[in-house]
């Protein structure tokens, strides 16, 4: 499972030259990985314990005394495949295969195909490794590798200045959050000397000197690290910023894979989080809830369909994360896995959304939803896929909510609101692009708008179908039982109906304003978009004014000052040397005596204090 994508990468880099060959190689890597995953899944079907394999990667003795945990530094490649990770892997691999198959036809003109396909293989390698890891250092290695590949994929169109600029955010923001994750792991290591999660968790409250504060700090740092890669609002900019500029396949893969990897890693880390305190867990749940609502609202004012869909998907990921954390917090894992099931269900839909929306944007040659329309007539396939995406995103969290949330609690109200808003946002993207007239613009003839190549059209559908199938599965307690080997109580049909109704209400609510007055509705959301845009601009200005500019000025000042200072010292020593030589030549005893006295004084003053 781990080596297949790596082998694909090595083959692609070392011996593949053409576009088709590179695509075939990447596809082969993904298919072989999926086959291996299914094989492992088959082996696990009748087992409750997972398969494990471990290899020593690094063992260094770094001390001969002190606590034994700190005398050795070990990084082991510990791979553990259980039901949950196998399902997560299968979801990711299906998304990879779907997107690769789409890219085979629709991304024929993408520059640097070998580089791009190689990076996809590296990304898959990193994702597989991160999901299977139970050693924190190992997990971070794969995580960082996948992160690096993600950046290179998103910034693939290097020649385009806009792509390069947005790519920098795709590098800086997640890199920073990755550092939070690393710091969290480092905090834990510095206290417990242990990186293997299965050994670390029992030691959390039994190691001498443990403090709640330290675990809480580590938990928060690691949560930020995971949230950054899951692109939860407000850490979403690296995905929304690159959505219009990155290759659609790169965007789709990142959108589908990272939430799945992130939420699964979060699930693995939650036993550590739980060991902190109730207050920390509560704040993490609140953060996820706020993120879900914030992402949904932000999506409502996004004027670019791909951004709107990214944000709607981020809301689902936040809902899933919130339910997972809450499940660990109060109910001893019984429904935590429902949150994961929701995120898994939404992943293929997010990939499909990116592909279908990019088909429409490319055909209509605009990124502004106000200038779009009539896709239902002109680009039926993509429009239907987009409708499917809206429905799948809307209902994907319903099962999780039914299992994990009391509809009358404040938590339930908040998440219900998030579901409603994200359903509105998803439907809005579909309606804005598919309904209403497509107006003529300068250098744009609506009659020339046509569907993407036929052979690529089916893949977004298949992804939507996969998403709906996973959503349906998330309503079934047996599915959750399969994921976590636990027993899950059946939920009354009315509860399911309630949450599905909330999603459907959201879908319908979007149709009302856009159906009545599409231009007015989009104008209103564009007006509302000014507020977050201004806030964003103000934040950037503040950052630039108080952090970036002073830092750059300081560095530039040092760049000037250091050479000037050393040149001055050089000149002074040169002059003093010449003066000394001149004094020696002219026999100026007085000068020599003065210099000797000064030197003697210096030594006399310093030496007793120094050598005491």
């Amino acid at each position, binding site marked *: 499972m781990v080596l297949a994508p790596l082998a694909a990468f090595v083959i692609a880099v070392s011996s593949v030259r053409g576009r088709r060959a590179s695509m075939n190689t990447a596809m082969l890597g993904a298919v072989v990985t999926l086959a291996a995953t299914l094989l492992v899944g088959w082996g696990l079907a009748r087992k409750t314990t997972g398969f494990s394999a471990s290899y020593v*990667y*690094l*063992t*260094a*003795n*770094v*001390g*001969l*005394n*002190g*606590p034994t*945990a*700190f*005398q050795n*530094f070990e*990084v082991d490649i510990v791979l553990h495949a259980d039901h949950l990770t196998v399902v997560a892997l299968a979801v990711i691999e299906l998304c990879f295969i779907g997107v690769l198959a789409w890219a085979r036809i629709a991304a024929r003109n993408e520059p640097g195909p070998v580089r791009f396909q190689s990076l996809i293989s590296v990304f898959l390698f990193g994702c597989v490794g991160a999901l299977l890891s139970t050693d924190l*250092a190992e997990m*971070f*290695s794969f995580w*960082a*590798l996948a992160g*690096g590949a993600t*950046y290179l994929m998103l*910034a693939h169109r*290097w*020649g385009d200045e806009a792509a*390069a600029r947005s*790519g*920098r955010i795709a*590098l*800086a923001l997640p*890199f*920073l959050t990755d*550092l939070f994750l*690393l*710091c969290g792991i*480092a*905090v834990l*290591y*510095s*206290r417990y*000397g242990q990186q293997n999660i299965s050994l670390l968790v029992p030691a959390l409250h039994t190691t*001498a*000197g*443990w*403090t*709640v504060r330290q675990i809480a700090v580590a938990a928060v740092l690691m949560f930020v690290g995971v949230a950054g890669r899951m692109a939860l609002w407000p850490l979403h900019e690296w995905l929304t910023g690159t959505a219009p500029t990155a290759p659609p396949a790169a965007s789709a893969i990142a959108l589908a894979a990272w939430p799945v990897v992130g939420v699964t890693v979060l699930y693995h880390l939650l036993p550590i989080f739980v060991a902190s305190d109730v207050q920390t867990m509560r704040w993490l749940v609140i953060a996820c809830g706020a993120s879900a609502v914030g992402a949904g609202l932000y999506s409502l004012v996004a004027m670019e369909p791909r951004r709107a869909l990214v944000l709607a998907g981020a809301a689902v990921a936040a809902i899933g994360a919130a339910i997972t954390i809450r499940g660990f917090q109060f109910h001893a894992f019984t429904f935590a896995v429902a949150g994961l099931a929701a995120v898994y269900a939404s992943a293929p839909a997010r990939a499909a959304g990116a592909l279908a929306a990019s088909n429409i944007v490319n055909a209509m040659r605009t990124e502004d939803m106000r200038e779009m329309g009539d896709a239902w007539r002109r680009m039926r396939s993509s429009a239907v896929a987009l409708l499917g995406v809206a429905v799948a995103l809307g209902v994907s969290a319903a099962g999780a909510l039914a299992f994990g949330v009391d509809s009358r609690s404040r938590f339930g109200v908040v998440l219900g609101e998030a579901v409603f808003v994200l359903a509105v946002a998803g439907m809005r993207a579909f309606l804005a692009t598919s309904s209403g007239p497509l107006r003529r613009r300068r250098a744009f003839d609506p009659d020339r708008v046509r569907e993407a190549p036929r052979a690529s059209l089916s893949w977004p559908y298949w992804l939507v179908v996969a998403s709906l199938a996973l959503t349906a599965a998330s309503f079934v307690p047996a599915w959750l039982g399969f994921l976590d080997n636990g027993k899950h109580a059946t939920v009354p049909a009315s509860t399911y109906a309630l949450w599905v109704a909330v999603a459907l209400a959201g879908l319908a609510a979007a149709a009302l304003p856009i159906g009545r007055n599409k231009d007015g509705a989009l104008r209103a959301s564009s007006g509302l978009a000014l507020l977050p845009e201004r806030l964003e601009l103000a934040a950037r200005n503040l950052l630039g004014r108080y952090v970036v500019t002073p*830092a*750059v000025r300081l*560095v530039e000042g*040092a760049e000037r000052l*250091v*050479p000037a*200072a*050393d040149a001055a010292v*050089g000149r002074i020593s040169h002059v003093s040397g010449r003066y000394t030589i001149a004094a020696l030549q002219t026999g100026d005893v007085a000068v020599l005596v003065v210099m000797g006295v000064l030197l003697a004084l210096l030594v006399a003053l310093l030496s007793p*204090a*120094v*050598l*005491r």
Partner: protein
Amino acid sequence: MIAGLVHSIASQPFGPSPSPATVPGANIFTSAFILSIAIWAPVLMAAVIGVMPNPRGRYDTLIKQIAFFTNFLVLFLLFVAYNQFQNFLPSMQYEENRSWLPAIGATYHLGVDGPAILMLMLSALIGIIAVLASLGIRTRVRAYFALLLLTQACVTGAIAAHDLFVLVLFWSAATVPLALLILGWGGPRREAAAWRLVGYWGAGTLALVLAVVGLYVASGGTSFDMDVVLKNPIGPRAEVVVAVALLIAGATRLPLFPLHGWARDVYADAPIGVSVVIAGSASRLGGYLLLRVLVGGEPDGAKLVAPLVAAVAAITVVYGAVAALRSPDVRHAAANLALIPGGVTALGLAALTPLSIAGSVLSLFAGGMASALIVSAFATLSDRAQTRNLAVLSGVAARMPKVAWLTVLAALGLLGVPLMASFTSNEMTFFGAFKTQPVGAFAVAAGLAVAAIAVAVIIQRVLFGPPNPDAPAVSDSSLSESWYLGLLAGALLWVGIVPGGPKIPGTDTPLFDPGLVNQMVANIPEISAPYSGTSATP
């Protein structure tokens, strides 16, 4: 000194190594003078090259071959020594101890511990790579390669020295051939570069001399031997002064902000082979000095200046990244980026935990390789593109794919991405540093994030941006250029993928042997005190 050495060699019976190994693959080669050979063989061959007649460059190729095979021999010897090295031995190995200047207590005392053998491997590998990088030298070939071999000898001597007097001699001597190499074969600003090198490294040497004299006087003025001088307790004030002096000496070499003034000019204007030596091994001597003498010898002093070192490390990393981002010259940018591994090394030394120190030891190796690779890759790129101006350089990847990929590998190695040696060293350093220097560790990590942006911007612009039609013609790297860049990248990848390092099959010596750390921890229990818990429950 040479006469004394010859005499002592002549009077020493040949026999097994002072540290005979028992592991499989050991004892295939033994010599009591393995360190002396590693030091003096390059000197001898430099002398041979120096007196060799070479009318109108007739024997240029032969001279290059002599330089290459001399370094190859040294690498082979050290590889054997490395594989015979006894892990966990609480004493120096391959020791040579001869009386030299009894009047002042100076001895010709050489010996290596874990970090030292690793540094020697680094130095020897860099020596070969430097020769490969210098194959394009066409003028005054004899003098160039003689000076390069002398530099190699000085670096090896400074690493192997176990007597402070010998250390100071080799440490200071390294400056001379390097300055001459820059003056003779450097770029347009070679004079400024050479004088800056002499000025900064001279100031560092002065600081080291002050520290050594201070230690010598404080220990009774009878011996310069590290075993005597560093084990003698001195007063707290003297500790501070010695620690600060050592910090200045180390910071001028490594280099650390604000004593990095030489780096930009030297890396930008030195010939590529010389840049490789300076970035790869000569500058790492600064970190090695801090490790061996400050942390290993004066741990109390090290503890006192630890916050300062952590702050300097963080500033160096952030400064290097931002300065690279603002630099208009690709070689200046590389020079600024090459400061970053030094900052990581310094952070590990500031943290003073066993893991962070072990991380620093590996960081000396990985950082040396990464610095040498980034400096030489950008130098080769600018040579092949016929310009250093970042405003002109754009989109060259398609026309120089080999250089482009090697430059990308250099950038990844510098940032410490997984599968590169620097990842392992950075990880160990951070994990070790978080207990005692959390702010410094986080600041260095944030600096690496800024460095990632700087690297992304430069690579995007230079390699993958839109091609500049007005730029001069571009060509890809030659075979020798590909080889030396490939060797550096390969070493980083090899150690990153297999951190156990190069070993004869069957042996069990990790690459970054923690011999020194073990000795230190054994001597100073409070080094591991931060890990000891005080209360059972919160």
